[in-house]
């Protein structure tokens, strides 16, 4: 063990709040995003248009992201996708507002999105894969045939 861990380190910041505080303060930059989410929800309801918000691209200060997620809360649905590392999908307590956390195989965050949709896009099968689905199933139903029958 190095002696580094014996050096007392105190992290100070005006925005630091106790972990148990259910209402983290932040720098006030979460509020505009919450209003953007509200507009996106209205669009989803009226036109069906989905919206994605890149939270990593926001100029958040310490506490802002925590405040945003605290307001949105945690909903009923969780999903995990194993493709190029894990992707975690969490419904927020606001129906139609999803938190999609893209991680690589080393658990580094690649992107963090809020997705305002009925179902997050990453959960849906890709159209090209659907096109190949029947052929893939036929190949499993007829493993002895080198050429699977044409899809019908």
């Amino acid at each position, binding site marked *: 063990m190095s002696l580094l861990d014996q050096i007392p380190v105190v992290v100070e910041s005006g925005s630091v709040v106790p972990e148990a505080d259910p209402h983290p303060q932040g*720098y006030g930059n979460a509020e505009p995003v919450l209003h953007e989410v509200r507009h996106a929800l209205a669009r989803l309801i009226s036109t069906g248009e989905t919206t994605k918000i890149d939270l990593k691209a926001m*100029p958040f*200060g310490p506490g802002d992201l925590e405040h945003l997620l605290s307001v949105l809360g945690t909903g009923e649905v969780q999903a995990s*996708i194993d493709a190029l590392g894990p992707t975690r999908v969490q419904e927020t307590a606001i129906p139609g507002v999803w938190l999609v956390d893209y991680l690589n195989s080393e658990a*580094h965050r*690649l*992107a963090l999105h809020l997705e305002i949709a009925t179902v997050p896009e*990453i959960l849906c099968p890709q159209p090209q894969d659907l096109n190949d689905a029947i052929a893939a199933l036929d190949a499993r139903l007829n493993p002895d045939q080198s050429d699977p029958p044409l899809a019908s």
Partner: protein
Amino acid sequence: MAARKPTEKTLGESLRERGVSRRGFLKFCAATASMMALPPSMAPAIAAALEKAKRPSVIWLSFQECTGCTESLTRSHAPTLEDLILDVISLDYHHTLQAAAGDAAEHAREEAMAANPGEYLVIVDGSIPGPKANPGFSTVAGHSNYAMLMETVENAAAVIAVGSCATFGGLPAANPNPTGAMSVMDLVKNKPVINVSGCPPIPMVITGVIAHYLTFGRLPELDAYNRPMAFYGQSIHDRCYRRPFYDRGLFAKTFDDEGARLGWCLYELGCKGPTTYNACATMRWNDGTSWPVEAGHPCLGCSEPKFWDAGGFYNAVSVPTSASGMNVLAAGVLGAVVGGAVAVSAKKQTKAEVAHRQPVTVEELEAKL
């Protein structure tokens, strides 16, 4: 690293062979959109373009530099350097990273140039002793930096200058510039030059520019300094999370006063955010962990020309007074708030004007708002 023809496989084919599903590819594209500072809704379009993209051959030249830019690139997280080399580009020459040395290394560069005429990218980090300087000031394999640069760019598609040394001369060009250091754009006039400034640049900005070229098959939109607008289109100040404190006139006076502890604006401590164009405020460093202002330090302005000779890092932002008597302060303040104006006006500044820099007080700045 043997040179490869760029037409061997598309990126989509390459990823599929490695067992990457289409859903995984979409995820890669979501991360790529974030990296390129594009809206997440662009991910499907990026997927469609990258599916058909070919890996470009890349030759990386290192001249008068500290290797900080390469260090920065190797800390890129999205995509990782391994992803970048294996999937996005074919890094055919980089004498710091490659295993080969001596003749074999130099042959790799020559082979990449011969195999991909007119199609390879040249990335340069470090400044170059100019044609009038002693060629012995900086050499690679016995060739002067100038000779190697001009030979390599002759048949290149484009040149990406990475870091403040390659883009603007950097610390080697600091007064009195003993080696006659020049930037890439000072020397290369017949090829597109993209400047990715910063000391060092944000790693994901380096990879983002390459990914943009690969995705769209053309160079990104550039500002007056040839920097990609996607990353350098807004000032640090405009995107700073401490901006609300600036707007309310709340400034830290010292590094350990109550204002500093409460996270107030660092303008009076010398923050160059109002005149600095970069993506630190949103992309951050070390895998999005933090950035200088979040760590409590003012922005140094490292992505701007001549930041090394522009006065003290801890003096409040200053703008030069013009010889014509025009109140450049007004232009500076407007540019800091609206964005863009400072970059254009600053390009026209002369050394004499820089010598007449005057500090701008907070009261003056606020009076102009």
